């Protein structure tokens, strides 16, 4: 462990908290609130760049009808409200990073490192990982993986990276349309390739892409697909096949961005020594503890007899779980149930 000047020099920074929550979906966010009521601090880690989990990523505009007290609420609005509800307790966030490995330290606390090397420590880990980490769906193109980070990107974090570049985007959904529109003003050239003739994104985005194509600000290739990648060390060209004409053509490309959505995978959690039942983590319904003391699992990722994968059930699980986590952190302290109607919400 580095310390003092040396630590500052290496930018070695450890995030310390009480509850380290993996997954910033509805259940993880509500855990912050329930933990905050009993004065436990939380930090959330999520592979996605935004909190909200699948509600934000998959169905933000879908109404949910079974949240008690809300006859209907859009998934995206529920997330906004959960963030607002958690705010008084100042949760920390490590977003866009995947929880990679855990290790028990000498003091009994956990050390968790993400795939980007961010280090967190906490006495308690709460896995609220839902369906797992969302990973990009990859098209089957030979050599695709060889060019990853050498021209092939699945997620755009810094659009400036594409300034002055020849960019080829593949896909027919909103993210393909939105990034085509955005990068049209940034990149040297943008080519959008779609396997079909119609798009399924927002109508105004589709219209904008059509307009950009008409004014030749972008190149639009329909009924087409990228079928091969060429280059020495870095990507230089993509090979495009047109289904109608069956013709192949080569196009200069510094970057190829396939945008075919995300699909969830349990990921590195699999190798943490937790009992697993297929892709879920069995827990004791007494406190939603896993087989490893100090690690809990709440929400869609856990499993127990009678389990229902419902947001409202996850809220209940989180509420009971934090009580047990408190007793584990402070074995000598008594915890008295307090009602928010009586005590209010005392912000940190």
């Amino acid at each position, binding site marked *: 462990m580095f310390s003092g000047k040396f630590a500052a020099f290496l930018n070695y920074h450890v995030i310390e908290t009480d509850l380290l929550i993996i997954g910033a979906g509805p259940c993880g966010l509500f855990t912050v609130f329930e933990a905050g009521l009993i004065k436990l601090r939380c930090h959330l880690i999520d592979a996605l760049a935004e909190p909200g989990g699948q509600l934000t990523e998959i169905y933000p505009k879908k109404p949910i009808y079974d949240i008690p007290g809300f006859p209907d609420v859009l998934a995206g609005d529920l997330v906004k409200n959960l963030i607002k509800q958690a705010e008084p307790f100042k949760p920390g966030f490590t977003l866009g990073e995947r929880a990679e490995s855990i290790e028990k330290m000498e003091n009994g606390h956990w050390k968790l490192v993400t795939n980007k090397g961010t280090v967190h420590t906490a006495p308690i880990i709460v896995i609220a990982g839902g369906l797992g980490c969302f990973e990009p769906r990859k098209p089957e193109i030979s050599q695709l993986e060889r060019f990853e980070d050498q021209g092939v990107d699945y997620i755009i974090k810094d659009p400036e990276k594409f300034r002055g570049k020849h960019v080829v985007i593949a*896909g*027919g959904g909103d993210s393909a349309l939105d990034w085509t529109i955005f990068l049209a003003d940034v990149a040297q050239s943008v080519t959008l390739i779609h396997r079909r003739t119609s798009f399924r994104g927002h109508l105004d985005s589709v219209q904008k892409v059509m307009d950009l194509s008409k004014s030749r600000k972008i190149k639009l290739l329909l009924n087409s697909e990228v079928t091969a990648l060429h280059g020495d060390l870095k990507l230089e060209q993509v090979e495009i096949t047109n289904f109608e004409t069956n013709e192949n053509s080569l196009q200069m490309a510094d970057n190829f961005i396939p945008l075919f959505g995300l*699909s969830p995978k349990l990921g590195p959690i699999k190798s943490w020594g937790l009992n697993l039942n297929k892709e879920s983590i069995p827990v004791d319904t007494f406190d939603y503890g896993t087989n490893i003391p100090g690690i809990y699992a709440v929400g869609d990722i856990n499993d127990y007899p009678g389990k229902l*994968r419902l947001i409202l059930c996850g809220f209940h699980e989180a509420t009971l779980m934090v009580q047990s986590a408190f007793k584990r952190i402070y074995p000598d302290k008594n915890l008295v149930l307090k009602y928010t109607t009586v005590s209010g919400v005392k912000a940190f």
Partner: protein
Amino acid sequence: MDEVIQVKVTDLDGVMHTIDAPTDMGLNLMEAIRANELPIKATCGGMALCATCHVLVHSNHPLPPMSEDEEAMLEQAFLLDIPHSRLSCQLHLTQAMNGLEVELGESTGA
């Protein structure tokens, strides 16, 4: 028991299961498969948003046409080009489906 139909479901190991499925409970095929405890991932729960309930339809039963959402999801998951592909969550069970034969797609176990 007129409301119950039978559907033949071949799992990823190639084993065919004949399942009973009620048509009066508003179920879709994915839910009937799940209710019979056959392995089907069906991650998104039936919103045509994940393609992990993908099936190949092997009989000639008349099925409702694909919605735009279903077609788009199959396309995005690179499954649209596989003949007879459907999302089982989008197939609402009706009497006309009695005897339907489907095979679970690879993504149902991913």
